[in-house]
């Protein structure tokens, strides 16, 4: 992902972002030239040598006229440059506003305070639809249609290296498209102020070759694997008691709708909407200290005995 995972002018990774990347550099070149020219004019205007006034005329002042050429030439040249920029911007708008061909895959992203629910609907066979959270997988080289909704306040869907921003507004469905040229992990982030944990509302887009993507999707469609160890069984019990009100795990009675689906939690790279890497230690830290890590988030800090913590951790590790 590079040193600045949310940059968009070092590298663009797909056709929804690349024309804007070129436009960005063209405009940076233009405005830098304007700034340099104006700065030079200003400095010369201030510092240029002036012929001394004839003796006895020091108090005289020039008439209220002259200098019109400055306005005509300056404004004329500026207008031409501006018009060129405008045309280029419109051409770019035309090329990124819609995908070049009908996207074969449509996903639905719903924003919540402060995480992302991701639906993979299947119009042909609704039983093949599945849901995940905070990690979008897409196949490389094909446009993907992203439908955007919000469950509460306004958020913004933004994966800088793949496309510009689109707001997610409650009561309306916005549409965005993304496409990745090469396999990789692309960082996304909410950019519309949405309350206390706006700073920690990130996600990732994992672009994979089609075969890998299909394998991932098949794995996601399955319910949670069977539990084999007593530790995990105790953890599942605990989960049903203390977590299932908000979280769901498909294939178990846990069917909460207010928080991320955890059916395949352990397969994800990050937890807590992009804030922590997904290790067993971080998972437990998050459960026990959510309010320290993300103050005011809707996840409470849980008090767990050492045994309970171990059991819960063992259970979560089974959610591959």
């Amino acid at each position: 992902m590079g040193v600045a995972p949310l940059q968009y002018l070092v590298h663009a990774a797909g056709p929804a972002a690349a024309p804007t990347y070129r436009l960005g550099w063209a405009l940076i070149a233009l405005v830098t030239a304007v700034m340099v020219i104006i700065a030079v004019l200003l400095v010369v205007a201030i510092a240029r040598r002036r012929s001394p006034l004839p003796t006895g005329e020091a108090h005289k002042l020039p008439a209220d006229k002259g200098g019109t050429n400055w306005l005509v030439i300056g404004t004329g040249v500026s207008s031409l440059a501006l018009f060129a920029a405008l045309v280029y911007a419109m051409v770019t708008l035309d090329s990124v506003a819609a995908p070049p061909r009908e996207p074969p895959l449509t996903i639905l992203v719903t924003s919540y305070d402060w995480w992302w629910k991701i639906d993979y609907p299947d119009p042909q066979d609704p039983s093949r639809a599945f849901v995940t959270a905070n990690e979008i997988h897409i196949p490389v080289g094909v446009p993907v249609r992203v439908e955007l909704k919000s469950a509460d306040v306004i958020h913004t869907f933004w994966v800088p290296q793949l496309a510009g921003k689109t707001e997610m507004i409650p009561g309306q469905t916005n549409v965005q498209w993304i496409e990745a040229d090469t396999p990789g992990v692309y960082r996304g982030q909410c950019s519309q102020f949405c309350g206390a944990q706006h700073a920690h509302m990130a996600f990732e887009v994992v672009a994979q070759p089609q075969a890998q993507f299909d394998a991932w999707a098949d794995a996601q469609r399955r319910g949670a694997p069977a539990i084999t160890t007593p530790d995990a069984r105790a953890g599942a019990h605990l989960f049903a008691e203390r977590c299932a009100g908000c979280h769901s795990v498909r294939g178990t009675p846990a069917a909460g709708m207010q928080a991320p689906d955890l059916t395949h939690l352990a397969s994800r790279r990050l937890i807590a909407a992009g804030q922590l890497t997904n290790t067993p230690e971080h998972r437990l830290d998050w459960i026990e200290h959510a309010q320290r890590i993300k103050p005011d988030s809707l996840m409470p800090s849980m008090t767990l005995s050492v045994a309970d913590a171990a059991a819960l951790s063992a259970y979560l590790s089974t959610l591959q």
Partner: protein
Amino acid sequence: MSEPPISAMPGDPPGTVRLARPLQRGTLDEAGKARLTEIWETRPGWRGWLSTVDHKTIGLRYLVTAFVFLLMGGIEALIMRVQLARPNAHVLTPEQYDQLFTMHGVTMIFLYALPVLSGFSNYLWPLVLGGRDMAFPRLNAFSYWVFLFAGIFLYASFPLGQGADAGWFNYVPLSSLTYDPGPNIDVYALGMVLLGISTTVGAANFVVTLLRMRAPGMSIDRIPVLVWGTLTISVGNLFAVPSVSLAFLMLWLDRRIGTHFFDVMGGGARALLWQHLFWVFAHPWVYVVVLPAMGIVSDALPVFCRRPLVGYGPVAISTVATMVIGFVVWIHHMFATGIAPLALAFFGSASMIISIPSAVATFAWIATIWLGRPVFKTPFLFFAGFVLLFVIGGVSGVMTAAVPLDWQLTDTYFIVAHLHYVLIGINVFPVVGGTYFWFPKFTGRMMSERLGRIAFWLMFVGFNLGFFPMHIAGLLGMPRRIYTYAPDMGWNTVNMLTSIGSFVFALGILVFLVDILYSLKRGPVAGPNPWDAPSLEWSVPSPPPPYNFAVVPIVASRHPLWEARMQEEAEKPVRARSHLDEGYLLGQGREALGTTAVGGKPHIILKMPEDSYAPFMLGLFAALCFAALAMRWWGAAAALIFACGVSIAVWLWPERALIQREPAPVQER
């Protein structure tokens, strides 16, 4: 004098005078001036303090109050910069950070940026136009009091940890009762409605003053550019403020009365409605807080270039054009909301075209410096620095007007950089330069050149060091309004630089304030015209007497005080020049001359009102009424509305001294 008779109204037969009594022309001796002072002077003590309607006092109050708010907003910014200097810092909680950035925006945009310009305009308008006061002096006092009370109101819940916390843009549904149940948003919403009253009556006063209260001969093509700026934005405000006042009132009704204007969950309403209502106001507002400041530069920079402004006409027209186009660019704050590409293309184009008038002004300033003979006093430094910051803020604006690029730039620190170049570069720098320029007029004393230079360089270097890296932070993807960030995002260095720069900038502001306090008492005595400036305010003593002008001056050019020494002007006969010491005599009570709207010909002798407590009382009761609404004490609110009604009755109670005799057309001779 054998002046030709004054024909007042267009269409009147020649020789018609529409005045209650014939106007006398002449000069005034010291005894006459003493009599005028007696008529116009405000009573000493607290009575005078609460009842004065002197536009100069009100102007200074606006300036001082706005600077206090600037300091408060600045301290809020510095606290945020401490939090953001390093990644994962814990100086502030998210809630504290959200209140700080919201109050910082509210303070700077609403309680500093326009009020400070209103301060200059209130103080200067009658002086540069050659009048005795604003058209509605009591309304002027009322406008200030409501501004002050609205400012206090907006801050009232902040010390309790319940300040506005949904951003100055306050988008629904984040600001709805569901997601923000405390008093935070109620205070913000009602405070904005209250402040809107102040802005609206102030704007109406400026418009009428410009149309009717100019010195004879001060035709529309001779008024200073500052006046063009304030006139333009006042008309703009009359159109823009209703939108935001309505939006905030509807929001408050939604929250506390149970209306469903913005209630998305109830179905029907669109969350986007708020954004439209807000930005229809808030984008024009951006021009509202810069056009008068650009006017300050257009008027004061030429003084230090020892020549008139290049392109007065084009600059005045571009001022108006900017405001007009400014009303059709609000969608550029909403490019990412899912609006159709064709509409985006229109609003993106308008947002680029709006920079053409700015180009006119930029080249006018540079040409003025180029063709002039610059004198490097402190105000010149601020104005020249302003030109560069204006261009940087302008071209980054062009980048954001390119719709697809804006989809990347919007809501990142690039925008934060852009808007601070606009608001600090185009507002604060001219305001500080303007303060150095007009301080001698305000106080009779000069500010320190030495401290002024130190302040300028600290501010200029600190500002660029602090705010230029924000562009980079934005290009590296740093979103706005985040209370902290992870160390591996690539934003560490730029944020540290920004924090350092902002403290250097703050140090510059501090030096400027020290200079003000020092010079108030110890600055060298200034005299009427220390800068050898051309406009009318410099023809009266510093500080000006309560009546401004002993005789109403007669104006014959844009540069009344330079005429005798200017090429071409100096060749005109004396009777075609401006007359400043010898003009119309008005002294039967508080009197001012009403002139015709375009040509500036004498039309009517206006009886100006005496000082009054009514504006203060009405402002106080109105603010208390809003406080009662915020507390939901409905009975108290009703009683206070009644008290407001009584105040209005006292205010408007007919007085014999104010009887405006309808001037009958009189055939002279």
